[in-house]
């Protein structure tokens, strides 16, 4: 059967219930993969800030953000093309076309939140702004519980682990943010606090579309491709609106030419981290996946201290804050990682997935295959074969690679003293995460 043929939307197909629950061993495997991806996301998202630290030109933060998003856009179309091929993306669109809208909406949320953080840092400094927007993981837990049956029938111990862990991470993040802050006193405290809180709410709510997509069986590699359309469109609009118009933006882009590579490299690294975050949200839910990926703050701090020599020569009390904050974050992440999803809770997830499938008339087999990470797609109730990559996929990969190489040639080497041994160690750690998470995903789900 042609895997791209239109799906059958008969009543029997749409309303059939899922087959008996995914067996316990499979569930356990998926959870381990999800937890690994959560930690991998933290490492890669934290490292994404590193290339931007090399940028010392007087470029507006909005333009910095926009250029990172351009790098993100390139990566979000080329990486899925390389891993699965765009043919698989077409199958996902046929099965769940509504998720294009959800993906674009999530991208818009991200872009607005990211822009708000720029203004929040300007007005109240990183130390106050960061903990405020870090409420996103608590909000993620709330939406996960309210809308998607997460943590329902999970038992008091697991509730304690997840909520307690998230609160510990919040406290740790606050300590770290205060310690790592070198900002001047707040210029516009009320506006800054509003911006930081709004960013937290937007990011916390952005996980609603994520969960919606993954409960309906959507593959993260497809979802991020739609997500990035909203992200780039909204970011470009905001950069033009708030950056002084198209001419001013073009001037800023011209100024940024020598650092384009570093910014887009940051975007590329960010995409790898975000991809792991998406898989974490898919297999362990947003209530557990998002706090785990918030360990990115720890990694960002490690890069700052070890590679860029930040916080050098500060008081012992500040170092104590850094160590204390890091330990709190690690303890919180550990508590969440140990709070596994029980079969009872998983059956509640399946109820939510069933509800979504029926509402949007998604093939029940497709939804179940997505939930259990099977390497098969279901079209019209029958198993479809995996399509191979086409010329379009190779074109996307070649185009993205060519752009990155061209920008690397144009790039100016940063005039900064870096701690190279630390840089190599952290890079190796990231690559280990990439290898371990990638292998775990491949063995368990074949990236499905």
């Amino acid at each position, binding site marked *: 059967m042609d895997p791209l043929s239109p799906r059958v939307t008969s009543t029997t197909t749409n309303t059939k219930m899922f087959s008996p629950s995914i067996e316990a061993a499979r569930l356990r495997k998926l959870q381990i993969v999800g937890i690994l991806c959560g930690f991998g996301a933290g490492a890669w998202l934290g490292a994404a800030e590193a290339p931007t630290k090399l940028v010392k030109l007087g470029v507006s933060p909005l333009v910095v953000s926009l250029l990172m998003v351009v790098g993100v856009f390139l990566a979000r179309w080329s990486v899925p093309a390389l891993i699965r091929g765009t043919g698989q993306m077409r199958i996902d669109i046929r099965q769940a076309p509504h998720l294009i809208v959800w993906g674009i909406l999530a991208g818009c*949320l991200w872009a607005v939140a990211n822009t708000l953080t720029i203004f929040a840092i300007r007005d109240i400094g990183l130390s106050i702004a960061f903990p405020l927007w870090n409420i996103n993981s608590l909000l993620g837990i709330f939406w996960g519980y309210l809308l998607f049956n997460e943590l329902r029938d999970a038992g008091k111990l697991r509730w304690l682990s997840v909520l307690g862990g998230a609160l510990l991470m919040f406290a740790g993040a606050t300590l770290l943010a205060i310690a790592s802050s070198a900002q001047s006193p707040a210029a516009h405290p009320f506006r800054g606090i509003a911006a930081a809180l709004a960013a937290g709410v937007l990011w916390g709510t952005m996980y*609603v579309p994520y969960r919606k997509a993954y409960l309906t069986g959507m593959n993260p590699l497809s979802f991020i491709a739609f997500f990035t359309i909203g992200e780039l469109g909204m970011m470009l609009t905001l950069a033009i609106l708030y950056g002084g118009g198209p001419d001013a933006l073009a001037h800023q882009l011209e100024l940024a030419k020598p650092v384009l590579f570093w910014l887009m490299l940051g975007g590329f690294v960010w995409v790898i981290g975000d991809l792991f975050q998406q898989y974490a949200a898919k297999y362990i839910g947003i209530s557990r996946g998002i706090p785990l990926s918030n360990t990115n703050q720890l990694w960002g701090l490690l890069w700052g201290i070890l590679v860029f020599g930040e916080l050098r020569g500060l008081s012992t009390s500040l170092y104590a804050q850094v160590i204390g904050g890091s330990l709190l974050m690690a303890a919180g992440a550990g508590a969440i990682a140990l709070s596994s999803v029980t079969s009872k809770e998983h059956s509640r997830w399946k109820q939510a997935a069933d509800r979504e499938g029926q509402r949007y008339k998604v093939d029940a087999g497709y939804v179940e295959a997505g939930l259990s990470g099977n390497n098969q797609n279901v079209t019209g109730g029958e198993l479809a074969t995996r399509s191979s990559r086409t010329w379009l996929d190779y074109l996307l990969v070649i185009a993205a690679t060519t752009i990155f190489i061209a920008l690397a040639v144009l790039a100016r080497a940063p005039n900064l003293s870096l701690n190279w041994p630390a840089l190599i160690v952290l890079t190796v750690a990231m690559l280990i995460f990439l290898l371990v998470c990638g292998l775990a995903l491949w063995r368990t789900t074949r990236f499905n």
Partner: protein
Amino acid sequence: MHAPSPKIIYRRGSRRRPTVAKETNAHKPASVWTVILTDAHFWVPAIVLIAGLLVLQWIR
């Protein structure tokens, strides 16, 4: 019970054989947009996005 026969189209003046009309999505009870807009979950991120844009407009 038999399923309804596919609609056969005869083109005037055509020498070709009659063709079977393509199945359309007209039988669907609601379009994708209708389902999305009537999904309460959709309005959570949509309202948050609008509110976020308003905050951005205010603080910039």
